């Protein structure tokens, strides 16, 4: 037996336990979801049902026809794009600020990871209490410092009228609040990765730019940013995927009300409120398909660019 064949055999032997676990708990359930999406299936009659049977496209018709499907998809997109962009930009700013050593940097670096490592249920409740119109610290200080007339219900106001320079416009307040929460919770993740990359940028690059008389903004734009671009692109993709499928943050903060009905919460509602497994599966499948289409576009248009930058 040649060495390469031995390696081949050993490799397959080593990978198979892992592969079987992933197959059983991930791949098979997903495959079954695809089947369920094309069947009429409620939780009660699923017990006696075979794997295949009464095929129909009713679930998809129901998903696309149901009130609020398209607006929910729009909300999900807005929520995902806003949260991704916000957390990556904030993470980048944080990484730049903490790049050079100062007293207490190690401590602050560790403290900044708190929002990311703390349980979502706990931090969601802290935000809920802090933003509460009745007993929240934010509204109390808003009244004292900015003279707010009425307390603002951040998490249950769909449209908030803002007067700015004589103009009136409505902002989707609850959705914005949820996006800000996401940025707060996930900027440490971006910060970690960008800082690690930032510290691997060779000093000589910046020194050369400094000798050439480049200002800090120029050094950032032409020296650091190209170095960071690959990791930033990777973070954007990762955060986009994770946020698109996110359920708990929105569910805990608003319950999906006040214009924050992201698609993941709708799947949960289909599943638990109506026990309509088929419709839930169809909705989840549509969600996954939309995500893949978006990612396909991303890699088609920006994939090459990212490669070049790298």
């Amino acid at each position, binding site marked *: 037996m040649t060495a390469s064949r031995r390696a081949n055999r050993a490799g397959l032997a080593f990978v198979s*336990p*892992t592969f079987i676990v992933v197959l059983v708990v991930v791949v098979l359930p997903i495959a079954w979801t695809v089947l369920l999406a094309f069947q009429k299936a409620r939780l009660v009659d699923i017990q006696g049902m075979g794997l295949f049977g009464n095929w129909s496209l009713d679930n998809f018709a129901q998903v696309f026809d149901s009130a609020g499907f398209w607006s929910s998809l729009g909300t999900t997109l807005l929520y995902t794009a806003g949260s991704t962009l916000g957390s990556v930009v904030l993470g980048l700013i944080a990484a730049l600020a903490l790049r050079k050593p100062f007293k207490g940097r190690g401590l602050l670096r560790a403290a900044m990871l*708190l929002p990311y*490592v*703390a349980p979502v249920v706990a931090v969601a409740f802290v935000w809920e209490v802090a933003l509460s119109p009745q007993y929240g610290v934010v509204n109390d200080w808003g009244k004292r410092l900015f003279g707010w007339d009425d307390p603002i219900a951040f998490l249950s106001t769909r449209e908030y009228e803002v007067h700015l320079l004589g103009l009136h416009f409505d902002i989707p307040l609850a959705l914005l609040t949820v996006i800000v929460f996401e940025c707060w919770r996930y900027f440490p993740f971006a910060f970690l990765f960008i800082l690690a990359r930032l510290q691997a940028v060779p000093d000589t690059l910046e020194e050369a730019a400094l000798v050439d008389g480049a200002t800090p903004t120029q050094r950032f734009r032409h020296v650091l940013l190209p170095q960071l671009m690959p990791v930033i692109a990777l973070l954007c993709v990762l955060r986009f995927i994770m946020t698109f499928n996110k359920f708990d943050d929105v*569910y805990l903060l608003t319950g999906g009300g006040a214009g924050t009905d992201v698609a993941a919460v709708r799947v949960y509602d289909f599943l638990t409120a109506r026990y309509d*497994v088929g419709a839930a599966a169809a909705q989840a499948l549509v969600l996954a398909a939309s995500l893949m289409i978006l990612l396909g576009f991303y890699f088609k248009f920006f994939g090459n660019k990212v490669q070049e930058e*790298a």
Partner: protein
Amino acid sequence: MTRKAALTRAQFEERFFGVLRWFVIAFLAVITVLPFYYMVLLSLKPIDALLLDPGSLWISAKDFTLSTYRDVLRSSEDGGQGFLKFLLNSALVSLGTVVLTLVAAVPGAYAVSRLKFFGHRQVSALFLAVYLFPATLLAVPLFVIFARIGLSSSLVGLAIVYVAQTVPVSIYMLKNYLVTIPPSIEEAAALDGCSRLQTVRKVILPLALPSLMATGLYVFMIAWNEFLFALLFLAADPGEWTVSLGLAQLSNGIEVPKTVLMAGSVVLTIPVVLLFFAAERLLTEGLTSGADKS
């Protein structure tokens, strides 16, 4: 003349960003620490003190109370919320998940990092592709399967679901570390007569210990903090609730003061934050290793 103008622009920027940097640092410190300070602060107050002065960021000596914690931790028979039991449930599920995940991930990570077997590139991509599918998508079939085989309200079922969620990222983290171990070490072990399995057990695993710990810690965090599946599978059975679920259900109770809710949040947060600070360096390096080489 132009040279001088350029210099002043550079000087201005240096100074401007020098000052701005400290504002950013202060801002970051405030937004990350303040919410947690607020959480602890409220958990030590009686509800009347909160309602009387919601804006207070301090606590007077006469208001200070630990009764919120007593209320949260005491078992439900004694009129409390039974969080001690939930803590135990969470610890069991999380530790079980860590052990099962590592057992499942280590051989795969080793194979992907070392052995040029047929399809080794595709396999690692396949593992990561799992994250393309929303957890809610997995939730539907698992919900049905578990309802069918009677695992739907048990901690074992929950641990299995968590393994599914954490195996892919564990393989990724372990693999990034394993590729940095020089193959010559393994060759030396092979020359000394170790079989492949012995090499992994006696040479690779001890060398990969930091990475194993970092990965285990990360998995523990995910399992401890998880909420959706706990809600789906265990909601009907209060005896099996994890702390996250117990806290969420507590907030639905009408008669529960917000200060007690905050005490519950502190109880939920402390174990994972303590663990994190104990091993922060390990974890951040384990997570981002590979990111600085791209």
